[in-house]
């Protein structure tokens, strides 16, 4: 178990390191340094000022010097400061994380429940009306781009309701949980629904095919031969075995969503990590981009490790080394 963790963490650190290198390279392919200094100095600033700013931010040094500087800071737990407001990147990231996590924490159980239940129901009677209903629904949401669904929800559940005097949900914005749990909840319902419906469709399809495979297995026949109730056969025996690919997908999704709720945040104006990242990218604010990318890939790495460790819990045939 320990060796497994050490190995996986080492691999994860390698991945994260590679990711930072790639970000640096992308940044330096582009206009990066020059544009940033000019933008900061203002339109009319003399070249000397621009140079001075560039110097202060180390932007005039070769990229590997800057990279070394960045790594040095990283080793000391410091992600640096953003170019424009001189705020520590850690605090910028820390502002975004609760919002993004709120989004995931609410949406994840929802899509897992919707997806798995509809998938199980579909698989129980393939080609029945129930199956066709759920698979068609899943196909529809699977095909819907996140921003289209988000905008549609705003149109109907916010705008149409609000102009008819039913102001259930706000159209955008975020209220911290600590400030007002009710407002936090109201503000997140539509984003949750957007993210959950789009994601649940994948789970419906995945659960259905996984369950269809498992329901044909010999041990399911054995369970029936024991005279167990159909409910127990489906949930206790079949679903338990069908859960492995679902779990893998869930780990991947939760991990990638930390840096991947960009569109939902953009649609609903939630200043989470994705929203912050898009703005940082528009401003070429390298330290912020790197900070967010590191957090996002760390989330992927951690989730992958958790999933692999969960395998061992779920499936006794898997041993950790």
């Amino acid at each position, binding site marked *: 178990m320990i060796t497994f963790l050490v190995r*996986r963490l080492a691999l994860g650190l390698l991945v994260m390191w590679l990711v930072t290198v790639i970000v640096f390279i992308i940044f330096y392919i582009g206009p990066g340094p020059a544009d940033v200094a000019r933008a900061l100095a203002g339109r009319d600033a003399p070249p000397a000022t621009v140079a001075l700013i560039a110097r202060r931010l180390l932007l005039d040094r070769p990229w590997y010097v800057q990279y070394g500087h960045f790594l040095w800071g990283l080793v000391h737990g410091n992600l640096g400061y953003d170019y424009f407001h001189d705020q520590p990147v850690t605090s910028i990231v820390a502002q975004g994380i609760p919002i993004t996590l709120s989004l995931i924490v609410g949406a994840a159980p929802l899509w897992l429940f919707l997806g798995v239940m509809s998938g199980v129901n579909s698989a129980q009677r393939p080609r029945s009306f129930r199956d066709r209903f759920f698979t068609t629904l899943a196909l529809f949401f699977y095909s819907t781009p996140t921003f289209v669904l988000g905008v549609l929800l705003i149109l109907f559940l916010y705008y149409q309701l609000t102009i008819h005097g039913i102001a259930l949900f706000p159209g955008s914005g975020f209220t911290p949980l600590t400030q007002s749990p009710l407002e936090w909840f109201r503000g997140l319902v539509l984003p949750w629904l957007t993210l959950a419906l789009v994601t649940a469709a994948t789970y419906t399809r995945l659960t259905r095919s996984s369950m269809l495979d498992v329901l044909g297995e010999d041990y399911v026949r054995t369970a029936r031969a024991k005279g167990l109730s159909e409910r127990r056969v489906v949930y206790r025996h079949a679903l338990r075995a069908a859960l492995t690919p679902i779990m893998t997908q869930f780990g991947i999704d939760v991990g990638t969503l930390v840096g991947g709720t960009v569109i939902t945040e953009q649609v609903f104006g939630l200043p989470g990590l994705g929203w912050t990242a898009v703005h940082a990218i528009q401003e070429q604010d390298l330290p912020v981009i790197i900070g967010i990318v590191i957090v996002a890939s760390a989330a992927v790495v951690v989730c992958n490790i958790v999933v*692999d460790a969960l*395998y061992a819990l779920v499936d006794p045939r*898997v*041993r*950790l*080394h």
Partner: protein
Amino acid sequence: MTAPTAADEPTPPLLRLEDVVKHYPVRAASRLGRGRRELVHAVDGVTLSVSRGETVGLVGETGCGKSTLARLAMRLLDVTEGRVVFDGVDLTRLSARRLRPYRRRMQMIFQDPYGSLNPRRRVGSIIAEPFAVHGVVARSERRRAVQELMELVGLNPEHYNRFPAEFSGGQRQRIGVARALALRPELLVCDEPVSALDVSIQAQIVNLLSRLQAEFGLSYLFIAHDLSVVRHLCDRIAVMYLGQVVEIGPVGELDVEPRHPYTQALLSAVPVVDPDEGARHRRIVLSGDVPSPIDPPSGCRFRTRCPNARALCAVETPRLEVRPGSGPRHHAACHFPLEPAEPLGAPRRQPPADLREGGPC
């Protein structure tokens, strides 16, 4: 290990495996990270030869290494130690290019009639593949050659352009035989060619194989997990257990008067298709399971399940040699071979005292 030496054979054998060993590393079953590296002793010092025109049967249970041995003989796997000699030439260290001429002279028939044919190719192209690989038959001539082969194995040549899925198991096995015969090999290695077939189809293929042998003077190394088919088709039988040959001898000797307890148990395990004889037939039921080939028992590998095991068996590996009372071509690897016609587990003479204190048993 003294095995049948050249003196036993009137002519030099077509295929000779000399002290062949195959160990391969496995990782303990694990989807995460790498497991402990362990060595599977799949084949552990097997010497065996097949003469021209001879059929040698290789019998043993799952995991005894018989399929591995077949693949070593075909050089689909490389030996860890030992030599594979085909018609006097050591194949073990030939490069792929130098090996090619020998590939034409030995071919293989596989167990699974579904897995052994590429489902996305037409039968004609499957059977013609050896021609294409070796460039031996002109492209324009291939179709005729293939259709002749199809007729030879009892397939309708009109089905040249069909796909494997359109044939039944027995017909597919015929396609595999036709493919193996395309290059006119001298040796056919048959890896359980009838195990996956229904009884009635099994007999068709067995008859086909013996007819082809008579017509083309083929030699067979014929692998099976039970003795009944082998006894019918083979001249000599080798019995494998946990990577080693425990007994080898001509049909009519080995299967009638087995000297190794494992052979006897295997023989008695085959259900007899006669209710009366079944009642008379004394079944020898072995206790326990086959030990893991990763950590085989010391000394005689069969001792953990052998009713006659004694202290010596754990200490010294018995040699495969002629035991008193057997014919010259009948070898058994047992310290305490069964007397001819002696039932297993019968009371025996006390072993000498010094052997009884030989070590843990």
